[in-house]
């Protein structure tokens, strides 16, 4: 009961800070971190597909990246354009310090909540 209350207030504090990450935000930030913190839409999409097998649409990736940019977790800049891209420039996304912090908090939350669940999973 005490632990539940602790987590409840923990989540409230996080929500006030705006540090809570949605599941897709969490996955995309992790993919960007796996790309050494910088990448464009295609790389992020392919990294997620390679690691998880989830085929996420490029539109969902961009919509989430835009949301993360508004929260200050990532920043973006225009990269080079190549003939392979029909002359269109890349939009490169970089994970910012705030994004790393939010990622650490979310990872810690998941670690804390999944601790001790192994036996229950085996029972299922």
């Amino acid at each position, binding site marked *: 009961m005490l632990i539940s209350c602790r987590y409840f207030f923990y989540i409230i504090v996080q929500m006030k800070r705006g540090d809570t990450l949605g599941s897709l935000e969490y996955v995309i930030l992790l993919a960007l971190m796996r790309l050494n913190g910088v990448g*464009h*839409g*295609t790389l992020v*999409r*392919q990294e997620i597909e390679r690691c998880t097998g989830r085929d996420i*649409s*490029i*539109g*969902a990736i*961009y*919509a989430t990246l*835009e949301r993360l940019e508004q929260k200050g977790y990532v920043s973006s800049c*225009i990269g080079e*354009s*190549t003939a*392979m*891209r*029909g002359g*269109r*420039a*890349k*939009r490169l996304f970089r994970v910012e310090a705030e994004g790393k912090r939010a990622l650490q908090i979310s990872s810690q939350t998941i670690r804390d909540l999944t601790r001790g669940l192994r036996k229950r999973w085996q029972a299922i």
Partner: protein
Amino acid sequence: MKSTNSRPPMLASWLVQSVLPADHGAAMVGDLIEEYYERCESTSPASASWWFWSQACRSIPSITKMSLLRHDRLGSASIAMSVFVVMATLKVVVEQVLSASHVLTDSKQIVLAPMIFLATTSIAGCIARLIRRGATLFLALFVLVAVIVLISIRVCTIPVPWWYELTFLILGPSSVLITPALIWAIHSER
């Protein structure tokens, strides 16, 4: 590369770019084209085209929401509403003039109504795009809502089959988005 002649589906590219703001639109279509050529190498152009179309179609709900929620949405919505009111008034005037001249029978009216509607929505889409790129999406939304309202209050007194009304529902918002996208794409290619 297996096939250097293969080109990414242009209509799908235009569709994505017409919904998105300029900066994101170019980058996203660039990403799709990049992966399209990678897939042409690893699979086949037909499979890559299928993938491109599926990505474009699946992306539209997310990017529509993203475009509508951008910070300049109030300005874009106001422009779209102004264009909508002007073009709707113009359409009503044209229809009144035609019906006053008594040259229109019911059958002629059934044929002419979609043409006038398509021309009006296409012109409105181009005007909105000319003023502000993001306004076309709001205009498409307004047209969709207007058509739904007109169908539900049964404004059409002539008996028509269900698919006739459905045509307005699909073609209205589509023409608002696709016509300016096509014109601007052809213009930029020149």
